[in-house]
């Protein structure tokens, strides 16, 4: 059933009765499983939650280019170099789709980047982890992209239309990255003993970032029960309940974390790699693998914003942005001049500059 869309967003100083009516209409959209579109009215809390999630996701794609990007010049075969270039390129593309989706909520990419650079918006703390060897690029693709696929697949059905459509494109490409990552780990495991040691070392270091940070804090009371994380879990549970009610999420962090562990344990066995958690074993009764609950607060603090790598990631981004300022200014000046010359209101090419517009992918993904 198609719900009529007679409402525009931002009711401003609508009387309370009209607010109630708008909310009722929004609730009907969510309940009917239809997507919410940019021109639909939406509650402020919904808009804020979405924006926070989409921006964090976009930032994570852009920051996530760094650990792998650092190995582009050192890839040990031309085939692997090509694959890695294509992957990092995909991540830049995902960042663009997602910034475009965020822009449909009435913000500007330049402002989002500014918030990232100033530490006002976050990115996945997973990437506050250094990529120390070539095998790390394989472990990142296999484990963190593997976690991302499980985390993100349900987002292809998220309630906000532009986000859902962006995610469908993202997920298709992420699935390919995971296969490439697995293939790379397989090559290392079938190589010399030194190569296999490098692969195991990378898995030892990337397991926790993938299993903990890619899924966010525990958000079921059971996960935090009795532990020091009980408060985190209770808070996470309330946020997740709201996100699920609004159709932004469909599963709790802990459900998705379990799904990831269940999928990756047999893969590790096939590769002959050991996941660094002695508690991993099949639980016949639950029909899932058991694993050690993450000591979330301790772990999160260890990768906090003031650590070497967190600062380094942002410093790298800021340096690129600041070094490129004169280029974006030139592109904007040129575009403005061309627009005057041709009598059209042209858009520039310097997407990060904001004032000159994006790449037009908003329309594509919306």
């Amino acid at each position, binding site marked *: 059933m198609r719900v009529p869309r007679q409402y525009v967003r931002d009711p401003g100083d609508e009387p309370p009765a009209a607010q109630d009516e708008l909310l009722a209409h929004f609730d009907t959209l969510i309940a009917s499983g239809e997507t919410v579109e940019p021109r639909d009215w939406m509650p402020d809390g919904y808009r804020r939650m979405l924006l926070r999630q989409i921006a964090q996701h976009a930032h994570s794609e852009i920051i996530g280019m760094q650990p792998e990007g650092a190995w582009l010049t050192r890839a040990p075969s*031309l*085939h692997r170099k090509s694959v890695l270039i294509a992957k990092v390129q995909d991540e830049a593309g995902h960042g663009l789709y997602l910034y475009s989706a965020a822009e449909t909520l009435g913000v500007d990419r330049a402002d989002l980047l500014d918030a990232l650079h100033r530490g006002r918006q976050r990115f996945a703390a997973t990437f506050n982890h250094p990529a120390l060897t070539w095998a790390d690029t394989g472990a990142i693709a296999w484990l963190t992209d593997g976690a991302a696929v499980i985390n993100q697949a349900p987002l292809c059905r998220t309630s906000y239309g532009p986000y859902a459509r962006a995610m469908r494109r993202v997920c298709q490409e992420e699935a390919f990255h995971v296969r490439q990552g697995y293939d790379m780990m397989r090559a290392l495991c079938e190589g010399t003993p030194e190569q296999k040691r490098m692969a195991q070392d990378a898995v030892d270091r990337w397991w926790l970032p993938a299993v903990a940070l890619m899924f966010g804090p525990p958000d079921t009371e059971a996960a935090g029960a009795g532990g020091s994380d009980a408060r985190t879990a209770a808070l996470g549970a309330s946020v997740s309940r709201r996100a699920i009610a609004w159709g932004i999420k469909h599963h709790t962090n802990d459900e998705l974390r379990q799904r990831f562990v269940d999928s990756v344990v047999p893969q590790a066995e096939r590769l002959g790699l050991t996941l660094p958690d002695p508690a991993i074993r099949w639980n016949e009764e639950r029909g899932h693998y058991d694993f050690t609950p993450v000591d979330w607060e301790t772990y999160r603090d260890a990768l906090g914003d003031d650590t070497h790598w967190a600062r380094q990631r942002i410093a790298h981004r800021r340096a690129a942005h600041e070094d490129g300022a004169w280029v974006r200014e030139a592109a904007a000046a040129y575009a403005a001049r061309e627009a005057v010359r041709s009598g059209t209101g042209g858009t520039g090419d310097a997407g990060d500059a904001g004032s000159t517009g994006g790449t037009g992918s908003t329309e594509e993904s919306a």
Partner: protein
Amino acid sequence: MTTTRDAAPAPEALRTDADLAVHLLRLGDDALVLGQRLCQWITRAPTIEEDLALSNIALDLVGHARTLLTLSGRLDGTGRTEDDLAFTRADREFTNALLTELPNGDFAVTVARQLAYTHYAVLYYEALAAGCADAELAGFGARAAKEVAFHRLHADNWTRRLGLGTPESARRMQAGLDRVWPYTAELFDEDDVLRRLAAAGTVPSPAPSRPLWEQRVSEVVTRAGLTVPEPRWQARGGRAGLHTEEFGPLVAELQSVRRQFPGGTW
């Protein structure tokens, strides 16, 4: 190009193979080294769109290098693979033109380097597609010319934007052109290897394309409000393995993982 060796080949055919191997290695090294330089930009570009564009171009260049190095290794009698050639040669054995190894500099230097290279490469790959007897190599030339034509468009557009953008961008773009122009002549150099190959009709020489290259780049540069440099000094030596001091670290980085794991499979 002779690739089957059932009967003992005539000495001329052997020499042609050896000459062609040398020539294809030069072209392959140009693409590999320039691709490596562009990889250094990724995550550091002025916009996310440019991170995307530069990685796209780098990917095409690495693809060209793979084809060219593979063909070269097949012809030179050593049976070396693309990876053997990329990862086990010493610095002095690389034969790329010096232009392609110039450090990235600021974005304008990179655009200037791209402008010079892409206009040259489109012309040469088109010549290869039209004037090469070997079907495989001609087919490669046709494909590569189409891809590099997009890279050329990217370079043309940025030359224009920077030249006509702001006073600062115009100053930097002119400085970029001035920086790379002494290194452009080497692209068109013709030595005995090329003269023999061209005389035998195996592959064309790049030398005859130079006037058209000059005409085309001059048009782009002057329409961007900039001046075509007229350098007195012209760099040479890359084809003989005589590189810049900045080249050593590029090769060391390229080969580092491969060399740390002798006998590895990737």
